[in-house]
C-alpha cells in the first residue's frame, strides 16, 4: 500500500511539472487493476439521466466526485452504507447541476488516497424510445502494439463505432487472448479510446485466474437504457454458468427487477447446451428474455440458431472483432433490428 501511495505521489508530481494527459492521473493501481473504486468502471459504467441515482462500490469511504473531460470536479453527496463483505456502497443522487456528458468517478479516501475510474459515469439529457447500440465480441488483444493485427483491427473498429450513431457499446468477451494482466492492461487502454459507454463481460479466453475481476470487478450486472433492460452474465468457464456459485442469485433478481421493461436483453459471451440449468430456467424458460446477444463462435448465427431451443428468445451473434466485424442495432417500439454487419477490413 505504501509503495502504491508513493508511486501515485510521484505520478502526481510528474503531472504537476509536465502536465501529462488525464489518462495517467491517479487512476486505478499502477498495473491498471482497480484500486479503491470497484464499480462503476470503464467496463461497467453507469448510464443515467439528470435527477436519477446510482451506486458506487468502494473499498473505503471518502469524498466522491464526478470529474468532467476538462478536469472540473463536481462533489457528490453520497449516502454511505457498510456492506457485510467489508466494502462500502455509496448511493448518489444526481441533481440538475451536472451537464450531460462523460465523467470520471473519483474517490478521495479517508486516508487521503485518491482513485479515479475514467469514463465511468455517463449523464444523458434524457432517453428516447428509439436508440441504437453497437455489439463487438472476441477482440483477442495480445498487446498494446498497433503493429499487432488484433490491436490494429480493434483500433479501426473503435474509430468506426465512435463515428457511428450507436449510443453505447456491448463487448461480449474474449477481450484478451490469454487473460494476462498485461493483455488486460492493453485492452483497458484501447477501451478508453471509445467516446461512448462501453459494457464489457469476460469470455473463455479471459478466465486466467481472477485477472478479469481485477480490472472490471464483475461479469454479472444489469443496466437500463431507455425503456429496456440489459442483463450481462458470465459464461466464460468450462462448466458454463455453473449452478453452485452466486450468479443465479443476482440473475434471477435482475430478471425480476427488469420485468416491466419494454425489451429485456441477455448479454454474454456464449450459449451452450451445457449451460447451468438454473440460469437457463431463469432467463430462457420461466420468464424468457426477448433477445440474447453473444459472440464466441466467430461467425454469425445460422437460421437454426436464431431462436434458443426453449423457443422464445431471439439470438443475435456477432462475428469476431479480430476479424474486423461489429454490428449496430436499432431499438424501438417494434423490436430490435440488426443492421448489416460492418467490416473494417
Amino acid at each position, binding site marked *: 500500500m505504501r509503495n502504491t501511495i508513493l508511486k501515485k505521489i510521484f505520478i502526481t508530481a510528474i503531472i504537476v511539472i509536465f502536465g501529462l494527459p488525464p489518462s495517467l492521473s491517479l487512476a486505478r493501481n499502477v498495473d491498471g487493476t482497480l484500486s479503491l473504486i470497484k464499480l462503476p468502471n470503464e467496463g461497467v459504467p453507469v448510464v443515467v439521466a439528470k435527477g436519477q441515482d446510482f451506486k458506487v462500490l468502494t473499498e473505503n469511504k471518502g469524498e466522491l466526485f464526478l470529474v468532467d473531460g476538462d478536469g472540473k470536479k463536481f462533489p457528490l453527496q453520497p449516502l454511505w452504507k457498510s*456492506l*457485510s*463483505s*467489508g*466494502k462500502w456502497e455509496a448511493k448518489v443522487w444526481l441533481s440538475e447541476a451536472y451537464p450531460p456528458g462523460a465523467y470520471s468517478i473519483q474517490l478521495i479516501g479517508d486516508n487521503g488516497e485518491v482513485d479515479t475510474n475514467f469514463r465511468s459515469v455517463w449523464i444523458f439529457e434524457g432517453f428516447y424510445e428509439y436508440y441504437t447500440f453497437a455489439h463487438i465480441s472476441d477482440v483477442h488483444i495480445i498487446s498494446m502494439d498497433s503493429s499487432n493485427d488484433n490491436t490494429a483491427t480493434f483500433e479501426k473498429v473503435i474509430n468506426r463505432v465512435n463515428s457511428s450513431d450507436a449510443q453505447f457499446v456491448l463487448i461480449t468477451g474474449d477481450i484478451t487472448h490469454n487473460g494476462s494482466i498485461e493483455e488486460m492492461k492493453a485492452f483497458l487502454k484501447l477501451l478508453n479510446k471509445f467516446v461512448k459507454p462501453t459494457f464489457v463481460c469476460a469470455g473463455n479466453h479471459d*478466465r486466467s485466474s*481472477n485477472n478479469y475481476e481485477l480490472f472490471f470487478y464483475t461479469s454479472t450486472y444489469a443496466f437500463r437504457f431507455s425503456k429496456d433492460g440489459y442483463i450481462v452474465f458470465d459464461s466464460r*468457464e*468450462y*462448466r458454463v454458468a*455453473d449452478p*453452485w*456459485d*452466486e450468479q*443465479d*442469485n443476482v440473475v*434471477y*433478481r435482475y430478471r*425480476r427487477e427488469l420485468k416491466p421493461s419494454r425489451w429485456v436483453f441477455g448479454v454474454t459471451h456464449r450459449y*451452450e*447446451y*451445457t449451460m447451468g*440449468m*438454473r440460469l437457463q*430456467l*431463469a432467463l430462457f*424458460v*420461466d*420468464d424468457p428474455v426477448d433477445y440474447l446477444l453473444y459472440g464466441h463462435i466467430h461467425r454469425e448465427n445460422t437460421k437454426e440458431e436464431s431462436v434458443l*431451443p*426453449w*423457443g422464445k428468445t431471439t439470438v443475435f451473434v456477432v462475428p469476431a472483432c479480430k476479424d474486423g466485424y461489429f454490428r449496430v442495432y436499432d431499438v424501438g417500439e417494434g423490436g430490435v433490428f440488426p443492421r448489416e454487419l460492418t467490416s473494417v477490413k
Partner: protein
Amino acid sequence: MSVLPIVIVSFVVLKVFVGLPDGDIACLSGEDVDTFRVTIIHLGEGKEEKIEEGTHHGNPVWSPDGSKIAFSLKMGSGGLQIGVYDVVSKSLQVLNSSYSWNDEPTWSPDGKYLAYISCEKGLVDQKLMVHNFEDGKEENWGGEKLPSVMKPMWFPRLDVLNAMSATVTQVTYAEGFNLEKFFEEGYSLGVLVGVAVIRTASSKLSTELVLISRTQTTTLPKELMAESLRFEEYAPQVSPKGSSMAFESNEGGDREIYYLGRRGISNITNHTSADWNPVWAPNGEWLAFESFRSGRRGIYRVYPETARVFPMVVSADFDAWSPTWAPDSKWICFVSNKAGKPQLYIKSIGSGNEIIQITEGAKHLSPQWRPKIK
C-alpha cells in the same frame, strides 16, 4: 489432510461447550470452476480433506452408507468423467464411460449402482447411464423412448411401484410403455425419476418428469400431470420413504414447488417469487427449499401435507442457498455470501436466527451432509 483455519477451530470449541452437531460435510472448495475440488469438512476433528486428483470437480454426492463420494471431474484434456472416492481407503476410482461429458451422479439405495447423465452435446442428447459396481460395466437405461434426461434420482423404496400396480387400470402411461417389464426390472434393479427434455411439435424444448427402469420409460400418468408439456418441470426429489415426491414447475406463471402425495399434486409454496430446489429432510417430514420471496435468495422449509412455510435463513443483506440436512434432521448446512465470498454455515432448525460459519478462505459451495453411517 490439512488443519482447518480459525473458523473451524472456533467451531470445534463451540461444539464442545454448546453441543453443536458432529459429522462430515462434502462440498466444493476453490476460487473458480477450474480450481473447485471436492473437500470433506470433518466437523468433529476440525479438519478438512481435499481430493486433489483431477480438476473441475462438481456435484458431489455421498453413497447411502456414507463410505464413498461420487462426483464429476475432468482428468487431463478430455471431457467430464465420474469419480468415486472411498473415504476409508482414500482412493479415487474414475469410471470408464462411453461419452465425453458425464455428470449428475446418483446412487442406488443399496449402493450397488451409480446412475449419471452422459452426452456429447448436452441438454438434447443426455443419456441415463448406470454403472454396475459388481461387474464394472456401464449400461444405457431407459430404452429408446427416453429422448434426453437430466436430474436423475433413484427411488429409495419401491412403494411407487406398489401404488402404480394398485391403480394400474385407472391410469394412462406413455405409448409403447411395457408396464409388466417395468415392474419386473423395477423390483429387481430399481427405478429412477428424471427430467426428460423433449422437443415438442413446434420444435421447442420442454421438460417432463419420467419414471425410468432398465429398458422402460414413461412420463407420469396423464391423470396426474395433465397438459404437462405446457410447463417445465425440474429437480424431482423423492421422499426418503419413497412414497411421495416433490418437484419444481412453472405452472401458474412462476417457479413453485409441487408435492405429489396420496391426494395427488398440490402447489405447496405458492408465491409470486420463484421457489426452487426442494430438499427432503432425512426424517421425511420437512422440505427445505430456496425462495426469493423476501427479496434475496433465502432458505425456507415447508410441511408438505399442510403447505405451511417457515423461514429458516432469510436476510435483506445476504443470500443463502444450497441447503443440506444433517442425518438427524435437526440442522442444516448451507452456502451464504454473508461475509462476502460464499462460505458454509450451519443452523439449528429449532433455534432462532443464529447461523454459524464453518469455513473461510476459498469459496465453499454445494454442501452435502454425510448420511448416517450404517
